[in-house]
């Protein structure tokens, strides 16, 4: 509901809605890029200085830094994308990334937008009958506006499941 007596407050609320929607669109496009294994496009969704890590909740809770995937900049993200597409040996699979429960948490001093969202990754192997829950966790994000697009300056994927089912072949 718009408040007819306070147009400035309305503008702030509309802006928040637009930002929420923009980040949601970003996350949907991110999930689609991974589901379809368009990894070059996935890498382009990060800023040049981006930090990307997939880390267990066990480690995160204990302030331990080891990540399944640990990228300190976009170059490492691109190396990951290249390696998975051209060198790594793993069985074919279907993946479904589902992102929800988005919350915009605030703004950093440099203008980066802090957000979090829950995620689920479901995996289908071609030699097993079932789709299995591969990861469930939270994205802790910092988004930055680059030109007219949002990009990820940081994405920390903290997964709850204690065990990785054999191997995490594609990013989260």
């Amino acid at each position: 509901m718009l408040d007819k007596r306070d147009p400035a407050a309305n503008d702030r609320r509309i802006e928040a809605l637009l930002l929420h929607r923009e980040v949601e669109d970003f996350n949907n496009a991110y999930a689609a890029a991974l589901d379809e294994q368009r990894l070059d496009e996935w890498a382009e969704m990060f800023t040049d200085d981006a930090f990307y890590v997939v880390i267990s909740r066990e480690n995160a809770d204990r302030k331990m830094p080891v990540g399944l995937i640990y990228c300190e900049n976009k170059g490492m993200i691109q190396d990951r994308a290249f390696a998975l597409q051209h060198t790594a040996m793993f069985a074919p699979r279907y993946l479904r990334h589902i992102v929800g429960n988005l919350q915009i948490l605030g703004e950093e001093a440099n203008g980066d937008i802090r957000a979090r969202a829950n995620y689920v990754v479901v995996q289908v192997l071609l030699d097993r009958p079932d789709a299995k829950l591969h990861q469930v966790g939270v994205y802790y994000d910092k988004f930055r506006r680059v030109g007219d697009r949002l990009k990820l300056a940081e994405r920390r994927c903290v997964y709850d499941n204690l065990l990785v089912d054999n191997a995490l072949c594609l990013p989260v």
Partner: protein
Amino acid sequence: MTLNCNAGALGYAQTNATIERMTGMALQEPILAQQYAWPDDDLTIIPDWVYTDAAIYAREVERIFHGPTWNYVVLEAEIPNAGDFIRSHVGPTPIVVARADDGSINAFENRCMHRAAEFCRELSGTAKEFICPYHQWTYDLKGNLIGIPFRRGVAGKGGMPADFKPQEHGLRKLNVTTHRGVVFASYADDMEPFTDYLGPEVLREFEATFDGRKLTVLGHYRHSLPGNWKLYHENLKDPYHATLLHTFLVTFGLLVAGNRSLMLTDASGRHGVMASAKSDKTVAGDTKKEMRSYKEGMTLREPRFMDFIEEFDSPWSVTMATIWPNLIVQREMNTLGIRQIVPTGPHEFIIKWTMFGFAGDDEAMTRHRLRQGNLMGPAGFLGLEDNEAIKFVQDGMQGAPNGRHIVKLDPATPAGTSDTLISESAIRAMYRHWREAMDL
């Protein structure tokens, strides 16, 4: 009566019970020996039942993991203070490792003596004592039973028998030894010292990695792997695969056929160290042709990732030590890790990785270790490939009875240490030992 050689998931217990019903006799050792006869007594052939049979697995737990072996359980750095504890495993058996007030490290089964409840539920923590949540039987940090609620009953009724002695009902305790900050446990009471257990050559490599610097734990990976636990040892006693499967190793000269390398085993054959020296030289044309995974002109956008910062007194840039029966020590340039094997059945095991650095590391070195960690673990450029390959092997054995593997590479070395990468002599040495340990 004929017995199916590949009892598979039905396993020994059921077969045994059937025989007992039919003959009124317990299964005799000679029948077992017949059923599980090694093909032609030839170590270059490994029968599938080694990897798929439930009876074999049960015997491994009894004779290997619960037998005369030193099993890795924790790093001392993870339980530095009195009261610190961690949940661990010896074979599939859950245990707790705790540091007592006198500084001693104690290992005992995570199984209440009363009704078998797995009483310790946290992955790690600090405690004064352990209280079973079910009926609150209480144990001290050494596993002694120190409290039973209502032991004398209430108002003169009920309670434990008058002659029940708590001191005889402590938790099942394991023997513990440590070497250079690495803690091992054993069910056997007459174990040789750990240094003798490794033998001088494997010990030298162990001490090259654990060189006396204080360890700092950087974190863990945990994953399941749908294969037999021995395949993990074999993968690291099989330098042949590393030159072929892993493009990263090959392309960046980390492990190339023709590089200086060694596949070491101890005298018993149970332990091994795969070692190689990084090379900057380019791959020779004829070698390259054999290596389909070699990618000409591949470059990294972040080449720092593959830097090797010299820090060890060793000619090798990479060593992978397989310490029987449940430990891998990874020294892949500067990314360092413990891998603990926890078997959960013939067809699956869990690996818990503990990645570490040293107390003297500055932030840049820690970052370097973390960056290089992208090579290993269940999402590592090499690690994910190994996990996939082992799964494929286990898959390949399903539904095809009486199958066999061949491990004939490098006949000049029948079993044991080899200086060529194109060898399976360390796998044969492991099975020579395994057959002795299993009496098969």
